[in-house]
């Protein structure tokens, strides 16, 4: 499906970015607030930010915590979700707990976690892991409960035990659905990462943002926001490639090409 040049995703993306920039620029000059600089001012601030070792270190630390928290989420949430999707009793036992935690803003736990585990990385990683876990768990459970039951029978007839079936039949069969949860998890990880750093202000991108804010360096604030936005888009893009590769066997792999 080859369309005209202006239908290409990259071109559309660029046009949208230019449009947002134009609106932003117009609003900023019309309003004239010092806390609403033009996009060019924010862009001019970018090189300072990206050449500042302290700022880069802050970004690296944030990303590091995000990945560790995300990995913890994967390791715990997916097996629990799969078990919930396959076993009535596991589901009934854990469901009340999960439905309590799901809608709770995870950042609200930060003060308690800080009290327990201090201001260091652990409490932030913990809260990120919680934030990413619930969409992963929910979609793993959904995926596991919807798989073709006869796949499990076929594996049973080969002599495969229950734990092996969970990881070698239920997990791959539910993978397309699990990865939807994991993709939501990427976004959650970013949100919780920044908000945890705004609450426990010691280091990281969130801290960078608020420090610039305190010092009324509004162009830097917007530059940090730009960096965060680009990080989000980049992570999601990478994730989508990985997802498509992992589910290339699936019937729905073709339909789900979002971009």
């Amino acid at each position: 499906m080859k369309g005209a040049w202006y239908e290409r995703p990259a071109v559309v993306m660029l046009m949208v970015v230019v449009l947002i920039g134009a609106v932003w620029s117009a609003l900023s000059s019309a309003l004239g607030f010092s806390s609403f600089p033009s996009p060019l001012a924010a862009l001019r601030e970018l090189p300072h930010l990206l050449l500042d070792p302290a700022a880069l270190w802050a970004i690296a630390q944030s990303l590091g915590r995000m990945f560790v928290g995300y990995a913890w989420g994967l390791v715990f949430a997916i097996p629990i979700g799969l078990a919930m999707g396959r076993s009535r009793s596991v589901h009934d036992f854990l469901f009340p707990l999960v439905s309590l935690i799901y809608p709770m803003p995870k950042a609200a736990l930060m003060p308690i976690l800080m009290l327990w585990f201090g201001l260091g990385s652990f409490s932030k990683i913990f809260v990120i892991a919680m934030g990413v876990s619930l969409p992963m768990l929910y979609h793993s459970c959904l995926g596991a409960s919807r798989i073709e039951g006869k796949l499990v029978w076929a594996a049973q007839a080969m002599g495969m035990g229950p734990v092996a079936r969970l990881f070698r039949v239920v997990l791959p069969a539910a993978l397309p659905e699990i990865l939807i949860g994991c993709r939501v998890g990427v976004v959650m990880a970013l949100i919780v990462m920044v908000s945890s750093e705004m609450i426990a202000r010691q280091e990281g991108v969130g801290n960078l943002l608020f420090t610039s804010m305190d010092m009324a360096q509004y162009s830097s604030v917007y530059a940090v926001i730009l960096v965060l936005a680009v990080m989000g888009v980049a992570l999601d893009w990478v994730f989508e490639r990985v997802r498509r590769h992992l589910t290339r066997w699936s019937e729905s792999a073709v339909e789900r090409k979002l971009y």
Partner: protein
Amino acid sequence: MIQIEQLGKTFQTARGTSHTAIRDISLEVPAGQFVSILGPSGCGKSTLLYMVGGFEQASSGRILVNGREVRDPGPDRGPVFQEYALFPWKTVLGNVAYGLREQGVARSEAEARAMRWLEKVKLKDYAHFYPRELSGGMRQRAAIARTLAYEPKILLMDEPFGALDAHTRLTLQAELLSLWEQLQNTVLFVTHSVDEAVYLSDRVVVLTGTPGTVREIVDIDLPRPRVRADLLRSSAYQEYIIQLEKLLVASEAHA
């Protein structure tokens, strides 16, 4: 040898009432026999097969396979489902080698043996395709190869050709028959098609409606190897068809 003794199955429905799917079925299948279970839809014939497979538990009575009571699924009883149930994330080769890998056969050996099975079901050129890339008939060939590969003594086939078009169905019936004539497994074959049952089987067990129970067992005394074109002309074959059709109509009226 499969011995089914006074088997019964009662389900609890969502509304809390109980529904009897199968009542008092007794049946013996000697080793190496091809037995079809024929009945109208909803007579519990698939349920019976699933219980022999160990996928569902009996409510009363018991099933013995070579003298041992069936409690769980096991590699001595290989299922083939109407829905194929191939592992979609594995290639055809990966699917067929899966059971062997599960039994601890090394990868290269498992794949070599899987390849020989794929040759037998004429899928050698499709070894590296994913199931979704195959037609229904090819998927069912792959599923049959996957089950045969781990060499179950007993094949449990649940309307395996039910979802296929008429032509593919005839081709696969003939292929199954010639494979079975070489392998001589015990086969329990669920179908609602009279001519399929007569063409393939040594014996046909006719079940009546709800709850399902044995109405009649008919021995199909036709010489093998069977060729469908010749059978169609034989009066013995026609007699069997007529007899079984009458039994089916009667059992439908019964239901």
